[in-house]
């Protein structure tokens, strides 16, 4: 019996599609439960969804080092920009401000 690579690819894409939908349903459910442990799971699950989408739909599972290098540099710069001010906010004295009040 011959394997049709197109059909195999289509089945794989469908599997990925329903996996991401299922994970979306899971994080919505966790959000509705209002449990502390649930809140800590939501972000990692969302990152997993994004990772699955990036790896398969955006072909990040490619062996092209150029793409990985571009994204790695971006990630390093982004994390630096994120955590440098966060460190500053965490260790600076807080003052009431209309910009920090809801």
């Amino acid at each position, binding site marked *: 019996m011959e394997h049709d690579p197109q059909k195999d690819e289509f089945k794989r894409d469908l599997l990925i599609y329903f996996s991401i939908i299922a994970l979306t349903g899971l994080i919505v459910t966790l959000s509705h439960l209002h449990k502390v442990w649930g809140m800590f799971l939501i972000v990692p699950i969302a990152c997993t969804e994004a990772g699955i989408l990036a790896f398969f739909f*955006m072909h990040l599972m490619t062996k092209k080092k150029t793409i990985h290098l571009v994204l790695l540099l971006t990630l390093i710069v982004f994390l630096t*920009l994120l955590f440098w001010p966060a460190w500053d906010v965490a260790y600076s004295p*807080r003052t009431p401000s209309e910009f920090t009040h809801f």
Partner: protein
Amino acid sequence: MSSHPHLHDSDLVPYKVIPREDTGLYNAKFGIWLFLASEIMLFGSLFSAYILLRVGSFSWPVQSEFLNVPIGAINSVILLSSSIFFIRAWVALKADDIVKYKKFMWLVISFAILFLCFKSVEYYQHFSHHEYPKSSVFLALYFLLTGLHALHIIGGIAVNIYYAGPGMYLRKENKQWFINRVEVAGLYWHFVDLVWIFLFTTLYLL
């Protein structure tokens, strides 16, 4: 006369179709990844602003009470469906099935417009309750993030309409080049979907 075996005299820009030896990518693919890296910085900076403002605030609203989580979830499914339709369109294009390609591309466009319709309904609900960007820090961030994302959707719709419609003439000029262009547009579209996953999680669920 060009000495390169794959270049014609009319090809002033090389590597439009064949990949470069050093990067292993053709020009447009390398370009789109650089562009997506800049987009990661754009949305990343806004997400980090959100995180810092939320962490630094004395009080923060229960976001799910302000936002319509069912509509957000439906929008997630819509955008993900449009992503998979795009993949099917690209596969059909590579297989020279133009009818299927056009069908799936117009499905992508229709689902994107449907996403914007649901987004408009959400915005209308907010405005009818007098919830504007100036009302609070949270709403300002919500409208900024989702508004910027919606603008990206609109841009993607314009590109997809071009490649599903008038841009089809490019295929007659150079088939592989057109396939590459559609692939690159697809990468952008999947990125927009990826951003929505984080937007939905951060704004609607946390």
